[in-house]
């Protein structure tokens, strides 16, 4: 672990209670990171399905989703590319509300989130239940911009942000874990920022 000649800490000592290891505060900017072309997905044509190992597979339209009681996340987000962004407000609904309708079977232990682009990301079911995950359509009181996943993205803020699939269209309940898009491409299966689970083998 060589010290880099001439390199000094330039930023103030970060609040380690808030900034996971290896992360920096990106301040007011919100980088856009996407591997595929940004889709044109009008909200009124958009649908979200929950299927796989559930007792009652269901698909909701944009207006049907808005019939759920709203839910807001206020807090921080962390990207594997090392930026963190503090004090974000996302509004949508809790994933718990969708699962209460679809009713996962006793075998369901993992979720694959699918986007309209074909993007996928895998999560333990326990990471999207118990008030830890949302389907969101607004950020800081405004509609979620297209480049940030609008009209609708998954939000799982306690994990690195590649797990918060943009343009999410389907949650598939599974008995066994299987890797999603970035997970097949070298990223960690779970992605806990506090454990610095960035890449396979971390």
């Amino acid at each position, binding site marked *: 672990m*060589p010290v880099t000649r001439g390199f000094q800490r330039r930023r103030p000592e970060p609040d380690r209670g808030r900034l996971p290891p290896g992360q920096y505060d*990106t301040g007011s900017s919100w980088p856009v*990171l996407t591997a*595929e*072309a940004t889709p044109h997905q009008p909200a009124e044509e958009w649908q979200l399905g929950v299927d796989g190992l559930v007792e009652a597979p269901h698909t909701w339209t944009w207006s049907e989703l808005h019939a759920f009681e709203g839910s807001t996340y206020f807090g921080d987000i962390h990207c594997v*590319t090392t930026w963190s962004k503090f004090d974000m407000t996302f509004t949508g609904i809790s994933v718990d509300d969708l699962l209460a309708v679809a009713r996962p079977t006793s075998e369901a232990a993992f979720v694959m989130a699918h986007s309209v682009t074909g993007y996928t990301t895998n999560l333990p079911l326990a990471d999207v239940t118990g008030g830890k995950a949302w389907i969101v359509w607004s950020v800081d009181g405004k509609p979620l911009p297209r*480049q940030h996943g609008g009209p609708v993205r998954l939000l799982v803020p306690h994990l690195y942000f590649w797990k918060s699939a943009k343009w999410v269209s389907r949650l598939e309940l599974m008995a066994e874990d299987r890797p999603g898009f*970035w997970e097949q491409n070298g990223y960690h299966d779970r992605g806990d920022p506090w454990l610095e689970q960035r*890449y396979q083998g971390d």
Partner: protein
Amino acid sequence: MAPAPLAAWTDGRIIELDHPTPTTVRLRMHVDDRPRHLPGQHYLIRLRAPDDYTAQRSYSLASDSDDPLLEFLVERQPDGEVSEFLADVAEVGDVLELRGPIGRWFVWDTTTPVLCLVGGTGVVPAVAMARTARRLGRPDLVRVAAVGRGPDDLPYARELEKHGAAFAWTRTEADGRPAGAFTRDELEPLLDGVELAFACGSARFASYAEELLLAAGVDAGAIRVERFGPTGG
């Protein structure tokens, strides 16, 4: 089958360093026993302060895997704690921590005919792809369309010109072509026979590139995007 674990951190020594443009630095580094990489992959570069504070960023490789050194081209970002150090402080002989190669999506498989629509320092992965294609004797497989303010602002412009790249200068009129990014009419002939398109550049450039590729008839599933820069709004 699960992917192999990523290589651990290793030490890299700067062997060559120069500044091809006023805002960029080119680093050529030696790593003992490094794994081969595919063009389009990147490495993490990590800096370590005496109090053990670290900062790391990812940078695309410009070098072909047969090159004995790893080559990075880094643009100095305003208040960029890693890029400013690399551009202004780093010297030949310095040892930095490296981890890679990373990325299995934005890579050229060495056999598919591709177009790279790249802007500014987004040329770097296209340079790696073009160098690899030339080594393999198939320069025709990697077509490059590069956007820059002018020839003196675009890193690797001369090398890419020899490769047969098409250029669009946004601030410079050249050979009767008015200043401006590529138009759909200019791009369409470059797509003949191409099966995959790579778009790389700033968030703003990448948005332009992917919209132009879609407008020119490229299937959304055949577009791979790499964005960088401080913000996308």
